[in-house]
């Protein structure tokens, strides 16, 4: 198993979170600030979570992913997509009921035809479909060559000031 990493990237209207390795969130400060920032950014209207290089997810990480779906729903955005080619990870996500809250796919959508086959989107508005497809195409463009587009989330956290990160919730 490889030590886990959380990588994040933003491209136009899409926020991409990529989880790599054995992801165990034992960070002392939660990722709340990051999520708050993302949801405060009105430019972002779709989410893709890439689990293609994920070996394992701990319960806290699953909680974080669920929060993204819950927040997206309450903001009236389309369901976030999860790309999970690993059957075992998919099984874990399904056991947690994620199929109700996410578009679970083995690989990113590349055509609008493939989009029609996603049951969650079949009855959706056209603009939602367009957003989801655009988000998937963005993910596809993030390959080995432009890995630099991704930034470690831990690094993003370190960039926020110490008091921001460790502020206690009274």
């Amino acid at each position, binding site marked *: 198993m490889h030590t886990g990493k959380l990588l994040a990237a933003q491209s136009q209207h899409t926020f991409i979170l990529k989880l790599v390795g054995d992801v165990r969130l034992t960070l002392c400060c*939660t990722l*709340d600030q990051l999520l708050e920032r993302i949801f405060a950014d009105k430019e972002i209207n779709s989410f893709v979570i890439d689990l293609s290089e994920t070996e394992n997810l*701990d*319960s*806290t990480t*699953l*909680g974080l992913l*669920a929060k993204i*779906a*819950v927040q997206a729903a309450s903001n009236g955005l389309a369901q976030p997509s999860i790309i999970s080619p690993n*059957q*075992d990870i998919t*099984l*874990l996500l399904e*056991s*947690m*009921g994620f199929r*109700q*809250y996410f578009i679970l796919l083995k690989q990113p959508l590349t055509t609008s035809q493939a989009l029609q086959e996603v049951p969650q989107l079949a009855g959706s508005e056209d603009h939602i479909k367009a957003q989801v497809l655009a988000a998937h195409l963005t993910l596809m463009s993030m390959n080995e060559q432009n890995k630099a587009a991704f930034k470690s989330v831990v690094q993003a956290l370190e960039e926020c000031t110490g008091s921001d990160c460790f502020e206690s*919730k009274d």
Partner: protein
Amino acid sequence: MSKPEQSGALGYQQLVEENAKLKKSLHALEQDQLAAYQMQHRLLPANQAVIEGFRLNCLLQPALHLSGDFLDFWSPQSNKLVFYIADVSGSGSASALVTILLRYLLKKYTSQGELSPAALCTKVNNELLASGLEKHLTLVLGCLDIPTRQLTYTLAAHLPVPLIITQESVKELEGEGLPVGLFPGAAYKDYTCTFPEQGRLCLASDGVLEVLPGQGLQARQQKWQQLVAATGGDVETLLQRLANPLIGWPDDVTLMTLSGC
């Protein structure tokens, strides 16, 4: 003595002092953890207990002192037996605090007369989300009607899936459900079955899957089922067979069985 050596010697003295201070505070932290562990332990049922003609056997093997796993079994009213096993996300002290909150909530709601496992899950789900603790849990919650042996239960994303052991077979309890404390408005469902005569219900936390051999969740669940079949679900034998000195206990391991006596 040259200057660098002098500062080196000073540094050494400082290190000794620092080390002594660290040892002292580590000891204080350990004592604190131990006190909390003893408290959590006192809130658990005995390793063997009989209520309303049903026997509980359980064992907890925490990864740290404090556990994010919890279980209980009690009779909120005559002829009824409520039991559960829960696994709170994360581990250690913060998760242990949530196990105590869960115990309190379930005791409160059942004493108010609510015995539907699905309704209880809904209440706990709302309470956890409202609390803003950012913790969720997986749960198997059941209520047995003693005279009819009817078991009503709900499953909240708990792994491994509960097993019913009879003389003929080992079968998974049917059903599915969302974790508790993660999704607002999550709906839970009550499932029913008859608790088999001479049967034994075997529950465990997902820590067992981490110590079992095999690649992947499915393979490990299969191994778990085989192990339960081979041991008849005896918790002590199960824990012995799960112990692996090479890996220790990476996650809390909790085992629990319920059988008629």
